[in-house]
């Protein structure tokens, strides 16, 4: 008889004293991750232990918090970006101490509420390999890329129905283009699309296996190839219209019984020690100012114009995604 285990298994999660439960996306945890490093530091410096509950995406982690409601086992949620923020703001998260925000890079400080602490960021871009044919010239615009005949069926992008990166692309292009041009852009861009992938991993896999020559990713993606493979040929496009800045944030649940530990944990997340590990563990820029970047990052081009989502930007909703699917199917 196996069923008695379920009573034990199913009994509500109880927290050990000084144990923080952190809901986050999978790659934030595990061997060699930023989460692992932070967990060890937290135990050493504050005595608070960390229990990670990993999810496939940050969106899924947020959904879990919403589903569990006020009884949620989570103390901290890590990985919310601007596309998830409207949904996250509807839930009960605490205002954070102002001191946590004092060392942030300019442009990352919250304008209204202080419920979300930025801990890293990256710029969205189209990534390519300069050894393949028809390398995009410097200064090429987003619209120029979408309409250039040489790039037909050579791009792989993430699906807005299943990927938060895909949805960020909708927010980006909505911010950049007026309504009429937005439709033209997407109708044209789908001419360049070889295939649409469920998420970043599969899309990047297709790009590396040379199935597609261009992929939607981050301007920091080339840093990985420089650092780990000594390969300087992977490049990211800097667009005159601007590159969208995706900011990852963390927040503390109002229902948390471990508030002290949680605040200390976020203090460590924004400390110089952990922030200096962000580039090589997250392959993103650290949110704290004055953190020394590795050479692989300093050699990367930085966008001349940064597109930020408005503070109160709603997540690209289901209707917008439906409209996007119609562009893809050639129905609009």
């Amino acid at each position, binding site marked *: 008889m196996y*069923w008695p*285990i379920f009573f034990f*298994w199913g009994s509500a999660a109880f927290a050990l004293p000084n144990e923080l439960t952190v809901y986050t996306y999978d790659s934030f945890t595990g061997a060699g991750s930023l989460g692992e490093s932070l967990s060890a530091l937290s135990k050493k410096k504050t005595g608070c232990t960390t229990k990670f509950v990993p999810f*496939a995406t940050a969106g*899924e982690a947020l959904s879990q918090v919403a589903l569990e409601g006020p009884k949620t086992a989570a103390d901290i949620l890590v990985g919310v970006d601007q596309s998830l923020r409207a949904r996250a703001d509807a839930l009960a998260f605490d205002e954070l101490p102002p001191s946590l925000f004092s060392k942030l890079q300019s442009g990352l400080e919250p304008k209204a509420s202080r419920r979300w602490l930025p801990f890293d960021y990256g710029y969205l871009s189209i990534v390519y390999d300069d050894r393949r044919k028809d390398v995009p010239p410097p200064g090429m615009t987003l619209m120029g890329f979408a309409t250039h005949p040489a790039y037909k069926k050579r791009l792989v992008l993430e699906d807005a129905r*299943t990927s938060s990166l895909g949805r960020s692309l909708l927010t980006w292009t909505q911010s950049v283009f007026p309504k009429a041009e937005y439709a033209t852009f997407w109708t044209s861009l789908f001419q360049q699309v070889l295939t649409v992938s*469920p998420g970043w991993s599969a899309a990047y896999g297709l790009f590396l296996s040379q199935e597609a020559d261009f992929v939607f990713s981050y301007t920091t993606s080339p840093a*990985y190839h420089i650092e780990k493979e000594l390969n300087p040929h992977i490049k990211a496009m800097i667009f005159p219209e601007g590159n969208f800045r995706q900011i990852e944030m963390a927040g503390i649940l109002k229902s948390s019984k471990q508030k002290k530990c949680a605040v200390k944990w976020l203090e460590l997340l924004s400390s110089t020690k952990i922030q200096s590990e962000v580039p090589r563990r997250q392959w993103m820029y650290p949110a704290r100012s004055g953190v020394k970047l590795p050479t692989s990052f300093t050699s990367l081009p930085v966008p001349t114009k940064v597109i930020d989502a408005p503070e109160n930007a709603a997540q690209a909703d289901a209707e917008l995604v439906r409209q996007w699917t119609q562009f893809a199917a050639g129905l609009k």
Partner: protein
Amino acid sequence: MKNPFGMLPLACLSIAVLFLLFAFYYPLAVLFQQASWPGVLDLVRDPYYAKVIRFTYLQAAYSTLLCAIVGIPGAFLYAEAGERYRRFLSALGLFPFALPPVLLALGVLSVWGKRGLVAPFFGEGYSGVYGWTGILMAHVIYNFPIFIRLLGVSLAQQGSLEEKTALSLGLGRWRCFWAVTFRKSWRAFLSSCLLVFVLCSSSFLIVLLLGGGPKFTSIEVAIYQAIRQDFDLATAVGLGVTQAGVLVGTLWLLGNRTDLGGEGGSFRYLESPWARRFAFTGYSALIVFFVLLPLGYLLARGFTGLATHWRSFLAPLSVSVKLALGCATLSTSLGLCAAFGMRGGYSRALGSIAASYFFLPLALSSILVLLAWRLSYPSSLGSPFLCVVIAQSVFALALNIRPLREGFARIHPEAEKVASSLGAGKWGLFFWVQAPLLRGPLFLAMVLGASFSLGEAGSVLIFADASTKNLTATLYDAMSRYRFDEAFGLGSMLLSLVVLLSLLASALEERGSQWKV
């Protein structure tokens, strides 16, 4: 003969029923309670979702048809073949359950993609197999071996008496196969069709990766979007109910009967050595080109990663093996309990209800099931390892219950009668008569359970901690951190493990069938 087992079958069935009640139906009830119930009819009337539902079942029907076209000759050859070729064919049957779809998709693209092996033959304008072609091709590669596994094994055990009689009465060989041999195994054929239809209609990554764009939206994709992006539980539950309703309805139509075996062996249609050689070589070439070439590419591509990182793969390998053993043991034990309990004595309707009860986990969106688990059992306080084994066994039980039921159905009542008359009690009957006769189906059930566990990552991500990640979960993890070489290395290891398991299983199955009375 009076039932020698008394209340034992009912007690066994209760164990399996209770297991699913707590591990599947209770979480589902918790999820459905959370969702404000939408009018499912309204959902179907919505033109967008109507199109999604239509596409899902259309692609599943086309895929099933194509799998049958490719799989029936394979099943026929399985029945005709010698031991070695049978091992080769039945080894293919495990890939659908053990190979992560993302790897298969990348393998298919390595041969048929824009830069694939065949691309130079199609010229500059060739842009790969994205769209219907890609979806159907991957579904066929993934699922046609199911026909060999279920239909082929059934054809090989139907005996040859009727065929000899039919041929002696002047029936042609072609007509004899369809009218006599195939007819005897038609339930195995329907089982194969149903299983392929179910697997294809809940296909997620294949549709997304090879469909080539949002014009192909399946129910599974729509559920994923509703749960993970829009947080629209009502729509997700509504779609899940539609999906489960259609599939359970199909199962109901299929009924509760299983194919009864004949006297063992099968009639050989291919007599001429030339015809045999031609058939086996032609079919092997087809398999090599469409199945082994993409898989070979994966092995080759992963070789560097495997050579470099093999030490770091040992921990997830050990977890994978332990989980596979755990899942195979638990799901087979429960399958045995259920099949033993469902053996005869029930009306057809009651039998169908019982079959649907165990099959539903396979028919319902895995995304919805994972969400239900998250909600009901947010913390794996007992043992993460045990939680994963239990979660995986819910699905594996749905897969292995049919071969076990067929195994029980093939036990000749005469054997039990003789043993009883010689004084064997119920335990003696079970251990000395039934268990030896069930060796073949038991091996198959164990292998199905182990294969499913090897390829599964969802429950590992939910319940396991960092130290209990299996090969598949580690592979997805590596991909999400740019470590594609490592991911392909893990893929190679996984593939090698499946090949080994398949070969071992085929050998054991073969031996098991020799013990059969």
